[in-house]
């Protein structure tokens, strides 16, 4: 948060979590900690002390996203990185530290870079994961505990650092075993009977006597193809040709993996360091070079190469397994049809943006306008089950009901003469009314006027309209909501 608006760093503020009726702090800024506040305090108490303290809702998803980003960043030091619950990142630096000039220098590097990002970090290098966790959380802000020093260094660490269960930790503290050192002096057998083998195993893991398995995030192969040009590309045709070779390379890499491109992005660096980027999405994973190239070429209409393109980077941002279909003989025609349809949706989505090409999908509501959604066709599921309504529904619905001005006062029946779009219009009521009540549990400005009585009517010019009346005070108001039948 501080990274987003730097002036916050000078102010005390807290992040709060709401739980039932309780609002308590879950994280505090440095300034707030220095004022004597601690996590898990109720917000009311804090505001009693400092009325104008800033507080924000904690956003766990954002935290996780941020940690994921850090994880990606950390993969520059070692390919084996992992994240665990809480804000813990693990890096397996076995065999990687010498690349950065030793463990201490690696630690320095990480610390300085993270500090520059604006993070407060606690770092520890240890022989195993449990020890690293313990030292990072309860040791000094930065420690390098490897090999022989572990036993000595851990003597002064509080027992919490062992990561034992809450009961065992509590027990140890009650017995006066505040530090790990005093725990180690005890007999192993007596310790087992007190705290159980499970927590004893934790101690063993801490000292590297038991295996400490940790699954590291699998390092994903980056599907990126890059090409730099000695002589900058000065024409669109040149860019297209270069794109073709890049696509060819990328698809050749994808084929053995049986993966197809779902989403790809292309970045063009101009000589004047201007960056142009385009991305395309496919409805189905594809390694079809021509199709992909055509998708990109729609964007090239607006391409301004300027003084030339220096560098092209093509990345497959999202891939998915290529689906294989066993085709029956009679299916082949239908399959071909589906394919052309998919291609069409693809092309339109990429030309006009995927939110402009849509499919209908059903929704669960009795209100006419809420009973369906429009989803981007690129992501929509085509096979949906629609339930046929019992009562007659119009062919078209107005997104915003149009108010028709009434001249004569109606008695709950549709008026005979209305003014629609500034023109006089004669109505003949055909059928109705059908009463639709709003969702009382939802505050919907459209339905604030209460229940609606829907009628079918025919206009003098020969159109069928679906209109409703709502009573507001003395007068009735009429709105056209649907057309055709």
């Amino acid at each position, binding site marked *: 948060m501080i990274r987003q608006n730097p002036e916050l760093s000078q102010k005390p503020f807290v992040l709060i979590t709401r739980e039932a009726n309780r609002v308590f702090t879950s994280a505090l800024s440095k300034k707030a900690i220095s004022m004597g506040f601690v996590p898990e305090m109720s917000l009311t108490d804090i505001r009693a002390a400092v009325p104008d303290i800033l507080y924000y809702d904690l956003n766990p998803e954002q935290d996780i996203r941020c940690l994921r980003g850090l994880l990606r960043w950390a993969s520059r030091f070692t390919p084996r990185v992992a994240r665990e619950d809480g804000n813990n990142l693990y890096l397996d630096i076995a065999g990687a530290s010498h690349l950065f000039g030793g463990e201490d220098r690696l630690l320095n590097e990480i610390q300085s870079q993270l500090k520059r990002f604006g993070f407060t970090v606690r770092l520890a290098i240890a022989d195993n994961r449990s020890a690293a966790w313990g030292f990072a959380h309860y040791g000094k802000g930065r420690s390098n505990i490897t090999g022989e020093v572990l036993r000595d260094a851990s003597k002064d660490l509080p027992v919490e650092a062992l990561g034992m269960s809450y009961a065992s930790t509590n027990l140890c503290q009650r017995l006066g075993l505040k530090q790990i050192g005093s725990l180690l002096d005890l007999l192993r057998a007596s310790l087992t009977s007190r705290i159980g083998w499970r927590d004893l195993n934790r101690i063993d893991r801490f000292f590297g006597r038991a295996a400490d398995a940790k699954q590291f995030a699998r390092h994903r192969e980056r599907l990126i193809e890059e090409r730099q040009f000695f002589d900058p590309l000065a024409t669109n045709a040149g860019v297209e040709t270069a794109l073709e070779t890049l696509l060819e390379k990328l698809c050749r890499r994808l084929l053995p993996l049986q993966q197809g491109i779902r989403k790809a992005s292309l970045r063009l660096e101009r000589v004047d360091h201007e960056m142009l980027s385009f991305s395309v999405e496919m409805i189905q994973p594809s390694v079809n070079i021509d199709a992909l190239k055509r998708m990109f070429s729609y964007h090239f209409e607006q391409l301004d190469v300027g003084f030339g393109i220096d560098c092209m980077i093509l990345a497959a941002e999202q891939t998915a397994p290529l689906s294989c279909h066993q085709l029956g003989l009679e299916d082949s025609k239908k399959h071909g*049809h589906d394919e*052309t*349809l998919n*291609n*069409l*949706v693809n*092309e*339109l989505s990429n*030309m*006009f943006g995927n939110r*402009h*090409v*849509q*499919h*209908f999908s*059903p929704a669960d509501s009795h209100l*006419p306008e809420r*009973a*369906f959604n*429009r989803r981007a*066709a690129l992501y929509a599921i*085509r*096979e*949906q089950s*629609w339930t*046929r*309504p019992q009562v*007659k*529904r*119009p*062919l*078209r*619905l*107005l*997104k*915003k009901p*149009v108010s028709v001005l009434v001249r004569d006062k109606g008695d709950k029946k549709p008026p005979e003469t209305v003014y*629609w*779009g500034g*023109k006089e*219009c004669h109505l003949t009521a*055909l*059928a109705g009314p059908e009463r639709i009540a709003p969702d009382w549990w939802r505050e919907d400005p459209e339905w604030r006027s209460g229940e609606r009585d829907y009628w*079918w009517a*025919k*206009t*003098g*010019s*020969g*159109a*069928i*309209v679906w209109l409703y009346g709502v009573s507001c005070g003395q007068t009735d108001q009429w709105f056209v909501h*649907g*057309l*055709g*039948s």
Partner: protein
Amino acid sequence: MKHSALREQIIALELGRSERQVLPFGLPDIDEALQGGIDLGAMHEISGPAAVLFTQVIIRQKGEEVAWLSMENLNEEYYPYGLLQSETDPARFIVVRSQNSRDLLKAAYEVLASNAVGCVLLEVQEALTQTQMRKLQIAVKNTRTLGLILNTDYTGSAAPESKGLLGSALTRWYVQVLHWTYETTQIELYLTKNRHGSPCHWIVEIDHATHHLHLVPISGKRAIDQAESRTVAEALCPDHP
């Protein structure tokens, strides 16, 4: 005979293919006037207060995927449950909404040329120019797609003759509802432009339960109406005697 063969040839030349592909209505009178049915791979214009209803009849007859192209700021949209009631699967509807008319025409061109959908409904607020129509006609000519240009006007105030009489659409229709009940709808069809013959006028009854079409004879009872409608037909196509 020779006359009709010659006409056939002219159409074929215009459409750029040798044989006509048609979608018959199943009503002998209308099919005869259109010489077999409404042409596939061609553009047709539909306007009038009940244009949506009539396109629905054609869509149901065609029964394939439908692409509906309209401007984003259009206040109305197809209602899936209404489509369901008129035997059209909403899942086969592709909605394309464009921000400006340039994109709309571009999308229309792509969809018409792709031959992936059965019907293309192009919703326009104002009549297309001669060039635009011709371009769309060229796009669609080698496909089995039915191109429908929809120009709805519910209040029926704008005179139909003021709208795009110059366009190169193969047929032009003006539709309005005559009579409506829960069971049936009677619509009045004016074929105001017909490349295959003279303009005509029918009353068609649509059965809501079975979705069958019946032709209602314009009987003596409606003699006054007919006289009235003749004047309408004359107003609609002033170039026709």
